């Protein structure tokens, strides 16, 4: 029981940090760079992708014994495309402004390799419960990563967060942060931070293991 709780927590947690889709696996770069020019767009895109990811994981995992392996990719794409179309209509119904801001990128969720990747690598081999947790973790991790990029770009590029001005009028916007190149700069900075933290952690762990083994030797 304890082992299964641990593994399901792992399924969920790994997507958030250890295997974060954007910062570690570097998947789904097109929307991550293209619609992360403001925190609102980035979060909306992240949540839309997370929804599609969870739903496609649930469906693929529940149909895993029914779908022959020869036609699995075509069927997965069919399932993913359906959920993307649903999200497309729902966003149009919720807010036309948001729909306009996300533009063509909603439809492009279909070809986000993160979603097909999780369907093929995880959902098609695991139970519905584990696949749901995996989808949730990866989806939230993706939304979190997009939000991190979007927030930084909006703060520097427009001096605001979620449209609320943060600085004094004299703040000079870094227009480059809103432009596509700003997406690359911000992503690079986050990747740098992520890898630095990871390296430090491995080093500290390595040191403590070394100290332990030395202690044992004495």
């Amino acid at each position, binding site marked *: 029981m304890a082992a299964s709780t641990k593994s399901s927590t792992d399924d969920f947690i790994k997507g958030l940090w250890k295997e974060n889709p954007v910062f570690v696996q570097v998947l789904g770069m097109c929307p991550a760079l*293209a*619609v992360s*020019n403001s925190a609102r*767009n980035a979060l909306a895109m992240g949540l839309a992708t997370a929804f599609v990811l969870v739903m496609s994981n649930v469906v693929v995992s529940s*149909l895993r014994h*029914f*779908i*022959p*392996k*020869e*036609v699995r990719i*075509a*069927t997965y794409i*069919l*399932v993913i*495309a*359906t959920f993307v*179309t*649903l999200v497309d*209509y*729902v966003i*149009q*119904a919720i*807010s*036309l402004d948001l729909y*306009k*801001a996300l*533009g*063509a990128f909603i439809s492009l969720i279909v070809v986000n390799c993160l979603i097909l990747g999780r369907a093929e690598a995880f959902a098609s081999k695991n139970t519905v419960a584990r696949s749901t947790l995996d989808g949730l973790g990866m989806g939230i991790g993706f939304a979190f990563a997009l939000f991190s990029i979007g927030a930084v770009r909006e703060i520097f590029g427009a001096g605001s967060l979620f449209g609320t001005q943060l600085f004094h009028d004299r703040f000079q916007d870094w227009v480059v942060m*809103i*432009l*596509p190149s*700003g997406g690359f700069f911000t992503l690079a900075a986050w990747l740098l931070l992520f890898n630095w933290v990871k390296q430090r952690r491995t080093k500290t762990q390595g040191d403590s293991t070394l100290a332990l083994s030395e202690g044992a030797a004495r």
Partner: protein
Amino acid sequence: MSHAVEAARPAQTSAWHMYRAMVSVGVVCGLLIVGVFQATLPIIERNKAEALRSAIFHVLPDATTSTTFRFDESGGFSVVKGESAGMPQVYAGYDDDHQLVGLAVEAQGMGYQDVIRLIYGYSFVDETIIGIQVLDSKETPGLGDKIENDPEFLANFERLDVSLGEDPSALARAIVPVRHGNKTHPWEVDGITGATISSKAIASILDGSAQYWVPRIRRNLEALQGGE
């Protein structure tokens, strides 16, 4: 030899199983899409109508009510009641005293990525375009989409000259795009650096639409006056 190769191959799934999986998933997906489409359609239509209404009053700031007119090349303008898809139409704006203050006209044309749809306000008193709003565009986020909210670019359309010339069937001067910072005449559109194609597209959409509508509106002003 060939027997050995065939024996090594894993068992093939029968075509029936493949068809069964694909077709049943396809049918369920299709039904799901149709269901959600039907459920969201009225809300989307309402949102679009609401967005159009607010756009009309945005480009005609002095108007408080509006009436939709349909245009027929032979019969001139007539009031539209209910839906009339397919016919070219304009929206006449009236102030509190039921006086015509201007007309809002929808126009569209090719942008950088896809068709741009916009609405502009025409003031017949000043013979100028007094405001535009982009209704639909898929221009590049961060670059082309500046046509929607760049204050410097939108300032072009606060008083854009569309007066008629000697010949009342065409504009005196076409609306032309110029490079950023080179606008010297009231009929020129100052472009956006980094969104050249999108800003040129707006100028050409406006020119095409104004060349068609302005002469027709001016010929039929009386019919439009008594809309409300």
